[in-house]
């Protein structure tokens, strides 16, 4: 590995004060990926604090979802490193990275539609439930105890989102807003240190968005984890994010607090285009 890629970058002061002095939950150093000749993401250096709500914004096609795919090792980075809670995620599989403490939701909902709501959560709980393969066949050796434990934890997660009455419904038959919540609950079931939300407010009306904002804050406060979200709804981002990173054409064009981002001319230009000079 090239040594220059390992140089830590200063956090750029987007880490909230309560997380300073702690190991950041997520760091990327000069992260980049090429698809053939096309550089999709380049020189991405980020730091997310242990209990930070961070935002990743940028115009369409800026490479935001690609960043999420890099962070979860769906794509292998061409350059740079990712550190999750101080440990490198290089050469890990997607499932291993999840077990290291990163969970995510998807831009277009990807629930297990033919399974019940409860079973969707139990899939998320897969690695925290210790059930030997033989146990489920013989129904001995703590099968019942482990099933009961996973059921209880799953119901607890559902009640966090006010969905305990939907436990036995098919995930695919839920209304849209509930599917979005279930996807977050399923990701939380994997006991992550950071949860990545890909456009969680997409297709939501203002009151649903307000509820989502409340939920994101509650997730951070009650689970004491970091949240990183991709979102186009600027009122949501500016309202709840403590640190924001703006991406355009695969490169970071600005990092900082919501106030700093709002005032940054490069950001305004990326979103609205360059103002013509009046003659």
């Amino acid at each position: 590995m090239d040594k220059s890629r390992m140089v830590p970058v200063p956090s750029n002061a987007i880490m909230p004060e309560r997380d300073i002095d702690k190991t950041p939950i997520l760091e990327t150093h000069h992260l980049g990926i090429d698809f053939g000749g096309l550089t999709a993401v380049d020189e991405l250096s980020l730091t997310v604090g242990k209990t930070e709500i961070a935002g990743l914004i940028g115009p369409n096609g800026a490479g935001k979802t690609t960043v999420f795919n890099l962070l979860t090792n769906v794509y292998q980075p061409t350059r740079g490193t990712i550190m999750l809670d101080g440990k490198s995620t290089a050469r890990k599989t997607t499932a291993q990275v999840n077990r290291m403490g990163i969970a995510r939701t998807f831009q277009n909902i990807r629930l297990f539609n033919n399974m019940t709501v409860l079973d969707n959560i139990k899939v998320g709980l897969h690695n925290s439930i210790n059930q030997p393969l033989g146990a489920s066949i013989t129904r001995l050796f703590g099968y019942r105890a482990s099933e009961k434990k996973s059921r209880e934890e799953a119901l607890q997660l559902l009640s966090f989102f006010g969905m305990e009455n939907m436990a036995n419904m098919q995930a695919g038959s839920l209304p849209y807003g509930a599917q979005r919540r279930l996807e977050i609950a399923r990701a939380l079931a994997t006991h992550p240190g950071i949860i990545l939300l890909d456009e969680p407010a997409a297709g939501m009306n203002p009151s649903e968005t307000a509820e989502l904002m409340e939920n994101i804050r509650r997730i951070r406060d009650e689970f004491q984890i970091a949240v990183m979200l991709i979102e186009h709804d600027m009122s949501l981002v500016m309202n709840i994010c403590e640190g924001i990173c703006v991406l355009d054409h695969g490169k970071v064009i600005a990092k900082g607090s919501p106030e700093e981002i709002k005032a940054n001319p490069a950001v305004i230009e990326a979103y609205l285009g360059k103002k013509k000079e009046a003659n």
Partner: protein
Amino acid sequence: MTFLSNLINGISLGSVYAIIALGYTMVYGIAKMLNFAHGDVIMVGAYISFCATTYLNLPPIVSVVLAMIVCTVLGVLIEGLAYKPLRKATSLAVLITAIGVSYFLQNVALLIWGSNPKTFSSMIHLGSVSLFDNKLIITAESIVTVLACIVIMIALTVFTKKSKMGKAMRAVSEDKDAAELMGINVNVTISVTFAIGSALAAIAGVLLCSAYPVLQPTTGSMPGIKAFTAAVFGGIGSIPGAMLGGILLGIIEIFSKSYISTQLADAIVFAVLIIVLLVKPTGILGKKITEKV
């Protein structure tokens, strides 16, 4: 009475197809591939139990367990050596590999056991049941086959519905990438599926050869193809579908043999498949595939 006896024979043969079809359908549902070597795993299972009883004088039940263990290891090996490296390859490449593995197994069996058919002595040493003043005789093989099929069906349904591994299997079958992002090791899940399918193939091999006692290296291929047909017939990817498809196929085959023509029986079986697929392309219990835009 002949009708009843044909029906029982049909259900019994169909149960064997159903057990084999479960292997096809589970592997298809989870790994999204057609494992055409599955039929030959049946043949290996039958040879192992044949050797265990004939040369080692082991009791039948031990020989069946031994066959299951060997087939499980074989299934996991085939998956790990032949299919796993092709996980990201086109489905056509995997299909051709599966056909290659099938011929490989047949030829290895030819080398080890030779081309002379072996006479497989039934593993089931129970008397047959006679009803209606000996007008209807049900063989012990039929009874055991049907019972085995029912037990396997129930066990598999409970396993996939209730257990942690079963849930992981269903999750991988629905969305492999999302399951992986939830921390599920997809490779382990696929290996377990192959292990279960191959253990079932061993049972099917013993049951098949107990009823039709000729054992040669190609013994598995025709039942394999028919069980694949049964899986498609019932709706591939669906466990109850494989069961229903297998039993219906067995009944159709036996009835065609006794009422229409022995030579034409196989042709009729496959003609029925074509008709079903024309009317209902996803099979009897197949799920409708709807693509959201």
